[in-house]
């Protein structure tokens, strides 16, 4: 099945800093999603981005499908950005998402 690898595994930032999270996947995909799991466990869909670039406020994502990677940019980080960021892609189907192990982000005040 598809392999989804995320880096870095952990990241500590001071409030206001920018960061880039990376997701590599082992096969071509037509569905890639980024999620944020907050400290209370709720998973929030940030982006559905099989290709191209999208922006939502301070967050943006870029997927280069031909090179099998996606990047999540967080600008002017806030303490509420803390949590685990997951990327997920389907392994051999359009629907069964395989999740990476996540990046644990801690934003300190």
């Amino acid at each position, binding site marked *: 099945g598809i392999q989804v690898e995320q880096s870095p595994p952990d990241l500590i930032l001071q409030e206001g800093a920018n960061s880039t999270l990376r997701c590599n996947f082992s096969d071509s995909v037509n569905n890639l999603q980024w999620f944020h799991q907050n400290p209370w466990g*709720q998973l*929030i*869909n940030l982006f*559905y981005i099989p290709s191209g670039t999208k922006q939502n406020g301070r967050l943006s994502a870029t997927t280069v499908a031909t090179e099998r990677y996606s990047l999540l940019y967080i600008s002017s980080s806030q303490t509420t950005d803390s949590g685990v960021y997951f990327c*997920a892609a389907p392994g051999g189907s359009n629907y069964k998402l395989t*999740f990476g192990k996540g990046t644990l982000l801690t934003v300190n005040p």
Partner: protein
Amino acid sequence: GAGVSQSPSNKVTEKGKDVELRCDPISGHTALYWYRQSLGQGLEFLIYFQGNSAPDKSGLPSDRFSAERTGGSVSTLTIQRTQQEDSAVYLCASSLGQLDGYTFGSGTRLTVV
């Protein structure tokens, strides 16, 4: 409703008992998924429902696990004869179609003692 609703939010059960977990997806979403999240295992796919098609049960870890979706809406995940290794957070998600973003519920934290 506005989001995916799961109940109960927490469940503590004795080893060997059966449990039922419920998921109420977003109205109009044809696709429904169950995942499990446990320490050290990440997020594991369990089962997928799409409209009236036969469900994809390939992720169910054993025959003690079963799920159904009635009327293309509410889904229940049943675990029979629970074991301690079943302890995890069970997450339900729905999407408009196969190529749409998932919306997750808040999950059911299951603890088997």
